[in-house]
């Protein structure tokens, strides 16, 4: 599914070049959950951003190749990359509240992805059922004009209030009220093809009452629900591959178990490939089939989950496993970072 060969990413800083990735080789097969573990600064997230080329301006890929589904996307155009991001590859970020737009409803946010990646399906559904593709734009001007109308109306109302001629202000007040009422009813009217697809996407991640959730803003949802919405967004574009960058770090253990179970279920249903990036070896042990351990921009060990926990080969993996308290009160073995060089 995804093959990364000898990937090298550098960051140019004032202090010199930081080799964030120093020859990463990964192969993720179709329909498997692949774990990528490592400590802070080991290059896990940079790997994921390099694949989708979401690196900041200071970062650049200096070598290697990325092959997605047999297609070399190392030098793909920006247009093609936009199709891949959210289309073929869905991505879930660590903190759902900062990844979701706080001033857009869930409906609008998932709708955005559907319009970008599922345009054909929306039109098909609309013609099949004889419903409009998206919300009707009737009675609605562009945001700039809408804002101007409201501002003018408010200033007229206040002008007439100041002049003492209250009755002249009433029509303008009426316009303002009608605009708000129109917005309210349009928001609650989920009859278009796009809305139906959003509701379907939300019901896939086992959210109760998807129509109600579609109309709510991110802050109205609990942490677990927000992360479910993020997963729904990542899946909305019919992704064949899911990259989950620390999907459960911000959540409690019990909610974490629910979300991991959901990712596992969906992966099995859709036969997707999942790249799970985490620093928590426990999450990997629960979820993944194969796992790679990263250290200082290199993959130091790659194996099946059972083998890596029972029989770690690389000294760093051993040290990492020893550092976890596993019952018993004996002194923890601290990995000597100096041994492997500082990051």
């Amino acid at each position, binding site marked *: 599914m995804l093959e990364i060969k000898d990937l090298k990413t550098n960051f140019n800083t004032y202090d010199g070049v930081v080799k964030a990735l120093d020859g990463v080789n990964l192969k993720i097969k179709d329909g498997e959950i692949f774990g990528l573990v490592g400590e802070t600064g080991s290059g896990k997230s940079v790997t994921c951003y390099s694949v989708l080329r979401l690196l900041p301006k200071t970062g650049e890929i200096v070598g290697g190749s990325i092959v997605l589904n047999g297609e070399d996307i190392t030098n793909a155009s920006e247009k093609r990359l936009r199709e891949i991001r959210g289309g073929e590859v869905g991505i879930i970020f660590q903190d759902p509240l900062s990844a979701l737009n706080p001033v857009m409803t869930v409906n609008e946010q998932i709708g955005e992805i559907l319009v970008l990646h599922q345009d054909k399906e929306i039109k098909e559904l609309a013609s099949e059922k004889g419903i409009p593709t998206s919300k009707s734009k009737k009675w609605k001007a562009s945001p700039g004009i809408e804002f101007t109308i409201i501002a003018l109306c408010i200033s007229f109302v206040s002008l007439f209030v100041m002049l003492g001629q209250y009755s002249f202000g009433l029509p303008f007040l009426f316009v303002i009220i009608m605009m708000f009422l129109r917005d309210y009813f349009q928001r609650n009217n989920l009859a278009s093809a796009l809305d139906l697809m959003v509701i379907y996407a939300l019901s896939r991640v086992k959210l109760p009452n998807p129509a109600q959730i579609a109309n709510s803003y991110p802050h109205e949802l609990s942490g677990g629900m927000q992360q479910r919405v993020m997963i729904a967004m990542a899946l909305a574009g019919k992704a064949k591959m899911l990259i989950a960058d620390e999907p459960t770090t911000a959540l409690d253990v*019990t*909610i974490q178990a629910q979300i991991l179970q959901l990712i596992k279920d969906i992966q099995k249903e859709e036969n997707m490939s999942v790249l799970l990036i985490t620093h928590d070896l426990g999450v990997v042990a629960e979820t993944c089939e194969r796992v790679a351990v990263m250290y200082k921009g290199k993959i130091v060990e790659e194996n099946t989950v059972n083998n890596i*926990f029972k029989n770690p080969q690389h000294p760093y993996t051993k040290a990492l496993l020893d*550092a*976890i*308290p596993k019952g018993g009160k004996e002194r*923890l073995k601290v990995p000597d970072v100096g041994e492997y060089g500082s990051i």
Partner: protein
Amino acid sequence: MIKEHILQIKNLRKHFPVKNVWGTDIALVKALDGVNLNIEVGKTFGIVGESGCGKTTLMRTLLRLVEPTSGSVELSEEITGNEFTSNKLEELTSEELRRFRRQIGVVFQDPMGALNPRMIIKDIVSEPLIIHGKTDNMHVRVLESLNNVGLGEEHLYRYPHEFSGGQRQRIVIARALALEPKILVLDEPTSALDVSVQAQILNLLNDLQVKFNLTYVFISHDLSVIEYMCDRLVVMYLGKVVEEADTEELFSNPQHPYTKALLSATPNFGKSTKRIMILGDVPSPITYLDESKARLATEITEQERLEIDAIKDKDIDYIVRSSLNKVHPLIEVSEKHYARVKS
């Protein structure tokens, strides 16, 4: 008495009022609802629970950073030294409260947030000494407490951003120890750190406990850390203690369904235990004053039903959140093991 209780918390309640737009109370958030704890000298006392269960409020009422609604915290002679007018925390005068706070150090979760970025380490560690008037031999005292946590003279004139996460947490511990407290309250001291650094900090805390005969109050949601550190622990759920026992007893013989699920949610590498999932979302902690709304629903909710459907044909045990809303009285299951279960 050989095993003295350094702190005795008796029926502590903290209710935050929820007001409507007119400013009248309509509901209460019961952050602490009748908590009884006895903390022994020289031991580590653990508090576990998910976010929003009242762990942090308990810590803040222990320090009297928030005033409890009712209940009391009784201090032992070791803290009061027979000089205080009362052994009850809520009856101390402001001068006595200052003296009490000398006896109790705090380490917060995020070290970068707890350290002033514009102060050098020397000033950070000497600040509590200045506030409490121990200005004689200050340089020596500061150096001593930095040495205790494994830092040295060369770190005195640096700023917090020049240190790694683990070193910053060491500085926070050094500052907490500067006043030679009897109790150290640790609020998730390692949750922002990598496993290898976490191991260093845990070892350090164990060493310090032996060296100074400290009593720890250890708050965490990571059960493997709790199991490693604590002698006795309580599990909290929605402001109530649902189970209290010695660590070994609690881990080998959990009684309350929530504890069982929590223990099964922690990954144990290789060992196969049956997973118990908690389905549903965390219920709102708000208790309405209106009788008809006050009771938490104990029927299965829509979300729980969806999640049960999703996992019913898999081999997973589950409990639903709504079943946890029934509150049983705390009974003694076996010696020194209390749980809220049906008697």
